[in-house]
């Protein structure tokens, strides 16, 4: 829904005046035949986080704005291509392939603050940095991604990945490599039990835990000793994936490939030395999809029966949420399914529901699906158009339809191009009419292996 009332009434006169001063001199200057027009402004736009979403936004805004100040707050020097981590953890890619200096993507004229943001004072439009300095903004884009809450699994910490048979593709690139080694060690043992887990919260790339299971199955089958290995998949709810057709497909495929599916279990504790995992039975009503509603505050263990399982390898998927400093700000959702955990935005305009000068993009937002780089590609032009409209006091013209995509790797060497959106219970939204999202394909695998990383970098540069 568009919100003309919110945007013009609540955005301060100061911010609009800053834009207005330029509008008199012919504000919308044509840039080129390929690109939209530019806007003169004196506004200060702060982008928090320079991952896929934040970097795409600074590049887009740098092209569209003249005269304003764009500040990117991003502590990391290195940009990580996270979709490649699954391939690293599956032994297909080298880790080096996923890293590039952030400086390579930063457009000229953007101030890069190499620090963590520590707090957001949304009422006073002020960011406090970890070093204590403050940044005032006229417009804010929150793109800080996801916090991995390993601490919610008793006994688990990311440093354990690679030891005691523990893997976790999410923890980082080092850990993705160590996950590969842990799987390799398990394979070399020639037998044993592998447990693959999922989280009871929304996670980034909800397909990644499934992909890790499928690629490991490929490796087990290639070892020629598949029967010597037991593979369990422990899911917190009844579903394995939010898109219903894919959910059914994966369940069937797991059954065919001898994976023991157990539903309504969440990993609650781990004893690395004993190689034992504790699972809490979260109840038959629990429903896991990527819009699952379990919040940190609701992680109870007292009244839930638990089971202990021995493992030789375990793939841990941590519960996830927005970062603590976002959760402690007024920007966090106050009610509804995302309350206390995710940024409160309109899922179509990506404007904050209560602070109109704030937009959210990427993994941090509260949305039923969408924690993928593919979603960032679809969201970035929406935020760009809507922010520029807002700066001129116009109604927000662009809407995000929930597009998300996951090349669902169903084995090393094949994949399905699963693309879907909010509408019609996450109906497919295929980009290429000639690629059937329900078919496993070598060409889609080649896309994942060779083409998606270049396309991702084009998104970062604001080109796609």
């Amino acid at each position, binding site marked *: 829904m568009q919100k003309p009332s919110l945007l013009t009434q609540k955005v301060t006169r100061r911010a609009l005046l800053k834009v207005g001063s330029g509008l008199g001199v012919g504000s919308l200057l044509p840039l080129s035949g390929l690109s939209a027009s530019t806007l003169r402004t004196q506004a200060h736009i702060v982008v928090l986080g320079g991952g896929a979403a934040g970097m795409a936004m600074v590049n887009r805004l740098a092209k569209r704005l003249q005269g304003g100040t764009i500040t990117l707050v991003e502590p990391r020097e290195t940009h990580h291509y996270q979709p490649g981590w699954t391939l690293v953890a599956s032994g297909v890619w080298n880790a080096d392939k996923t890293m590039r200096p952030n400086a390579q993507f930063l457009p000229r004229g953007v101030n890069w603050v190499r620090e963590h943001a520590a707090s957001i004072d949304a009422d006073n439009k002020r960011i406090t940095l970890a070093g204590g300095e403050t940044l005032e903004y006229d417009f804010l884009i929150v793109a800080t991604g996801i916090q991995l809450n390993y601490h919610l699994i008793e006994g688990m910490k990311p440093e354990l990945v690679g030891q005691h048979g523990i893997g976790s593709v999410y923890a980082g690139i080092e850990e993705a490599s160590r996950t590969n080694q842990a799987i390799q060690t398990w394979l070399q043992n020639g037998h044993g039990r592998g447990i693959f887990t999922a989280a009871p919260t929304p996670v980034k790339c909800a397909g990644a835990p499934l992909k890790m299971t499928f690629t490991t199955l490929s490796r087990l089958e290639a070892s020629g000793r598949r029967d010597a290995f037991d593979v369990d998949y422990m899911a917190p709810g009844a579903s394995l994936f939010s898109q219903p057709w894919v959910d059914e497909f994966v369940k069937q495929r797991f059954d065919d490939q001898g994976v023991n599916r157990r539903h309504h279990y969440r990993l609650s504790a781990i004893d690395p030395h004993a190689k034992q995992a504790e699972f809490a039975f979260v109840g038959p009503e629990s429903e896991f999809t990527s819009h699952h509603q379990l919040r940190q505050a609701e992680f109870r263990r007292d009244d839930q029966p638990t089971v202990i399982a021995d493992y030789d390898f375990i793939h841990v998927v941590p519960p996830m949420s927005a970062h603590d400093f976002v959760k402690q700000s007024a920007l966090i959702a106050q009610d509804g399914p995302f309350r206390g955990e995710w940024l409160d935005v309109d899922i179509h305009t990506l404007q904050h529901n209560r602070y109109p000068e704030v937009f959210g993009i990427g993994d941090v937002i509260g949305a039923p699906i969408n924690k993928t780089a593919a979603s960032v590609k679809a969201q970035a032009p929406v935020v760009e158009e809507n922010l520029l409209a807002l700066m001129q006091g116009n109604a927000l013209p662009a809407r995000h339809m929930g597009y998300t995509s996951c090349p669902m790797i169903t084995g090393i060497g094949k994949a399905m191009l699963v693309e879907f959106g909010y509408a019609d219970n996450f109906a497919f939204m295929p980009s290429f009419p000639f690629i059937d999202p329900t078919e496993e394909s070598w060409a889609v695998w080649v896309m994942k292996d060779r083409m998606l990383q270049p396309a991702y970098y*084009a998104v970062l540069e604001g080109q796609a």
Partner: protein
Amino acid sequence: MSIGGILTILMYALAPFVWLLIMGLIIIIGLHLLAYLRGYQITHHRSRPANLLALLIGLTAILWVPWLTHSALGFVATAVDWIALIGAAAATFVIALIILHPLSYLISLKHEELPKQ
């Protein structure tokens, strides 16, 4: 997507193979130049072995192209897969022919130049 976007994607996709492309181009241009200086004409020279070898290399591409992409022929399943793979094999055949055709001419010259015993 803009033309700039397509070019950016191509640039990133080809970046790891730039040295290979440059080396390949140098070899092709070098061979053609050398053969041309010795009277080679692309339309006049006929070489059955060069054609057959290029065809063989093109056909074997059906086996090793999936392997190069960390996959296997067994996973080539959909119509799009087969069109892509046949396209890759055809491209391999053409490249092989572009190299082998002038090469066969140079080799045939060499044989003619050998002193008869």
